[in-house]
């Protein structure tokens, strides 16, 4: 059950999408999201969908994996759709009791669902093709200028990569603790909400203790290797933009421009 969590999962590969500089991929994702939120018409969505599908195709990530990533937010998608369907004012098509469905409502709901789905799939494409380490490296490099205004960029990036690194470890640990408590007859599956919440105590207490223990050990291990923060620290893999990065960035920028132009003409 816990193994189904795909948050931040990385599928190693050698495709163009994998080889792009992580900074480029982060920028692309930002451009993609901006374009998605500027899109107002069918045509602009079509254009962005085209970009998304090319991205999926190039990355070689199984579409199944992307769809699976949508599962946890299925509820939010449905909720947004229903809300938009009933609460958008406009030309009434059908009504019953206090609800009425409008033509605009159907459109908004449809586009909302499309927008969230594409948003999630686009960002998953980023995490599926970029290793957590590369991702935080890219983030640190992109946020670099903020160091001048005393934002602890390196520390933030380090915290993020540590957090990502420990997700699988903690999942495994949780699994083990659950099995051990089940062996003593713990029951996580039945009972009402309060009983179930109480049943979590035997898992959470050992889990927190072990998380603190691990944090402590990690801190000691880092100090033993003379870690002292970002000041004067050099990298093993220095990020360098390659021609392909500029090319893909230009293509994405063109798409964004296209979407903006289309929006300007009310399309």
């Amino acid at each position, binding site marked *: 059950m816990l193994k189904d969590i795909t948050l931040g999962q990385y599928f190693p590969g050698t495709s163009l999408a994998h080889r792009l500089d992580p900074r480029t991929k982060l920028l692309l994702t930002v451009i993609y999201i901006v374009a998605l939120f500027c899109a107002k018409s069918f045509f602009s969505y079509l254009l962005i969908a085209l970009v998304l599908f090319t991205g999926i195709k190039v990355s070689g990530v199984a579409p199944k994996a992307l769809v699976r990533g949508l599962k946890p937010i299925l509820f939010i998608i449905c909720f947004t759709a229903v809300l938009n369907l009933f609460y958008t004012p406009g030309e009434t098509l059908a009504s019953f009791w206090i609800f009425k469905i409008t033509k605009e409502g159907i459109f908004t709901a449809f586009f909302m669902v499309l927008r969230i789905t594409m948003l999630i799939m686009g960002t998953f494409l980023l995490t599926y093709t970029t290793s957590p380490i590369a991702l935080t490296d890219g983030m640190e490099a992109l946020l670099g200028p903020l160091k001048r205004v005393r934002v602890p960029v390196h520390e933030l990036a380090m915290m993020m990569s540590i957090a990502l690194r420990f997700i699988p470890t903690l999942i495994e640990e949780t699994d083990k603790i659950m099995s051990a408590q089940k062996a003593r*007859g713990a029951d996580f599956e039945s009972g009402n909400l309060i009983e179930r919440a109480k049943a979590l105590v035997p898992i959470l207490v050992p889990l927190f203790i072990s998380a603190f223990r691990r944090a402590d050990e990690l801190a000691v291990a880092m100090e033993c290797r003379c870690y002292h923060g970002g000041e004067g620290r050099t990298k093993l893999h220095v990020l360098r933009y390659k021609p392909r990065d500029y090319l893909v960035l230009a293509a994405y920028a063109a798409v964004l421009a296209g979407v903006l132009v289309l929006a300007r003409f009310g399309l």
Partner: protein
Amino acid sequence: MNPIIRVENLTHTYGIDTPFCRSAVDSVSMEIYEGEFLGIIGHTGSGKSTLIQHFNGLLKPTSGAIYLRDQDIWADPKKIRDVRFQVGLVFQYPEYQLFEETVYKDIAFGPKNMGLDEAEVDRRVRASAAFAGLGEDLLDKSPFDLSGGQKRRVAIAGVIAMEPAVLILDEPSAGLDPAGRRSLLENIRAYHKERGTTVVMVSHSMDEVAENVDRIIALANAGVVMSGTPHEVFSRARELMDVGLNVPQVTQVAMELRRRGVDVDPAVYTVADLRRALGALKEVGR
């Protein structure tokens, strides 16, 4: 002897439908007899831990079946909790699973889940604490204030308190110092003797297994490669070494002595036996 647990053609495959698909246990058939002290040996990754998690229904077999007193434990999945009360499993490094405020409450967790009344829970907590070698004065302490070895004893007491018909211990002495190891094993031996229930100990320390168990099952590459009394198993030293296992140090000494021309049984597996064998030789020599 009657088998209390019977495993038939058990296979467990992890990650079906993914590129990481791998059988940790592959068509294993074996029996655990009523009242015996069984040792399961195998190198890391031989499927020991996966196998024992089937005995109490924590894992469901991909194929095959497990019978507890001739009842298929998965016949009624709703009753799997009862199986877990009858087959107590102590995981590796069990001290990381303690969670209660006091030692007493932590040991009482299992019996309380069984729905026993207050007096019975109290009796069991005190009895199992004694079996695990914990003094009465420790019962009101927080388990987190104890030493590593004491924590492990608390965790073991927590399983013994369910009074299971079969007690399974996965590497019970791993990570303890020699004195802690010895005294914990002594406690386990005493428990087996006094209760007369079945005990299964998983280990990769040959010496530990040799000194304690009645019968050994050796696992390698997801299957059973050998089973029999310690003498039978350790007399096949060559085969054991071929699958990445070893024989007790005493056996190694006996084998080396034999190689150098001393006429001694190469399958002795305890210090006492070797001493007796050498003593007999001395008599003959005179």
